């Protein structure tokens, strides 16, 4: 069966250091802009899906309250994933493959400022072996970073260089460790934020955008949850998703990688077999701005924006779970 042609036609994001707005207030201008930029309203959307985590605010079913932003009328076909919005986009892409709907709105929101995010993340771990130990997300990142350093895949100098480039500030290995061997510069810059993407199929996409970012391939794969039962120095699920999405040898001008820690960039670049000609994370990525649960969708948005603005091909990557447990790869192209 041939896949239906689907493109990202619009992207909007808002990222702030700390939002004093609630989720709906944060989302409203973002949804308005994503839809308005292509002349649509919610009534034109066939399928709506969001990604977020109720753990950030500590309120169950908070994502239902966020749908207030869509308005009570007309009734909508709606879904949600308790994951980064990038995985909501995957669901929208699958839904549009059914063929009966032509447009989808994907949005994500996250306000990690509501709590101690790195500690809260321990609640996503398995409830028997890892969660009772309460390891924070920075520590788990550091375990993977040391594994990468021990294997010779990167160096502390390289981590500082990557972090400096993404953050746009000077970095140095003379800075103290936050979690040895990670310094603060090699860890994500937590932000509050929201983002939205509009997908459209076939001629609908051509009508909405002068230069749609067509989805050539989209795939996501998962590895064992336990950090000790999988390789921390090779992202096998990224390799699998890259094959599924046609990313190997794709020759992308730009790759937007959801690397929350500096050591994940070389790991992911290797799994995607990125050539030196591919620009990695010109947006700065999660090292510069990490609106948790939104960051992956922003990678798709920035990769699409690169195509909208003239790039021939772009790759977007998003991740979920501890230490790159699950990975999504999307190839985008102009046609």
């Amino acid at each position, binding site marked *: 069966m041939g896949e239906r042609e689907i493109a990202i036609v619009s992207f909007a994001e808002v990222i702030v250091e700390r939002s004093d707005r609630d989720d709906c207030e944060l989302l409203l201008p973002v949804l308005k802009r994503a839809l308005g930029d292509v002349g649509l309203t919610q009534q034109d959307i066939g399928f709506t899906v969001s990604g977020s985590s109720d753990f950030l605010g500590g309120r169950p079913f908070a994502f239902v309250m966020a749908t207030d932003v869509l308005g009570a009328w007309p009734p909508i076909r709606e879904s949600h994933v308790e994951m980064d919005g990038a995985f909501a986009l995957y669901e929208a892409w699958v839904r549009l493959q059914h063929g009966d709907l032509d447009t989808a709105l994907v949005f994500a929101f996250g306000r990690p400022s509501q709590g101690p995010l790195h500690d809260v993340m321990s609640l996503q771990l398995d*409830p028997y*072996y890892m969660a*009772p130990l309460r390891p924070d997300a920075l*520590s788990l990142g*550091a375990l*993977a970073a040391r594994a990468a350093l021990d294997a010779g895949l990167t160096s502390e100098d390289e981590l500082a260089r990557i972090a400096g480039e993404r953050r746009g500030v000077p970095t140095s290995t003379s800075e103290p460790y936050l979690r040895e061997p990670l310094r603060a510069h090699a860890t994500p810059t937590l932000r509050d934020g929201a983002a939205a993407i509009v997908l459209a199929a076939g001629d609908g996409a051509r009508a909405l955008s002068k230069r749609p970012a067509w989805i050539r391939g989209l795939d996501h794969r998962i590895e064992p949850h*336990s950090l*000790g*039962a999988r390789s921390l120095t090779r992202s096998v699920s990224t390799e699998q998703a890259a094959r599924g999405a046609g990313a190997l040898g794709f020759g992308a001008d730009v790759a937007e990688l959801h690397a929350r820690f500096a050591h994940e960039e070389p790991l992911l670049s290797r799994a995607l077999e990125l050539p030196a000609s591919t620009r990695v994370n010109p947006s700065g990525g999660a090292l510069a701005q990490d609106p948790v649960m939104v960051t992956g969708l922003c990678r798709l948005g920035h990769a699409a924006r690169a195509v909208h603005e003239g790039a021939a091909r772009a790759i977007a990557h998003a991740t979920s779970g501890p230490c790159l447990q699950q990975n999504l790869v999307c190839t985008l192209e102009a046609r």
Partner: protein
Amino acid sequence: MSDVMRAPYVLEYGYRRSTGPVIGQFLTALRDGRLVGGKTARGRVIVPPTEYDPETGDAVDELVPVGDAGVVTTWTWVAEPAPGQPLARPFAWALVKLDGADTAMLHAVDAGEPSRMKTGMRVRARFRAERSGTILDLEAFLPEQAS
């Protein structure tokens, strides 16, 4: 922020979980001060065990004893432990591959200071005196020369 009113807000779901035939045996062995792993059809020993082989998805139903000492495969240092973590004093998180195991498990290493930590070092499990059948029955690993 002193003008912000604060009130306690307790959110709790009182789940009772069945740990099942594999995790249950592992936790029962821990309560008895022993460590066991799950042996897969291909002969690998998974510690801590899951009901399935993480590589193939095949069921794992044979549990075998493994050593209570092993090798640190990676580690990091926690200078300021958070409430609820295994130790209240500074410690290392590590992945430890126990003798006889093919996978590593996450736990704390009570090493005193980061200069005593090294990838490849040997550590030995220290069990709590009072055990209840949870992963915290294993209090921490200790550097082997010190135990």
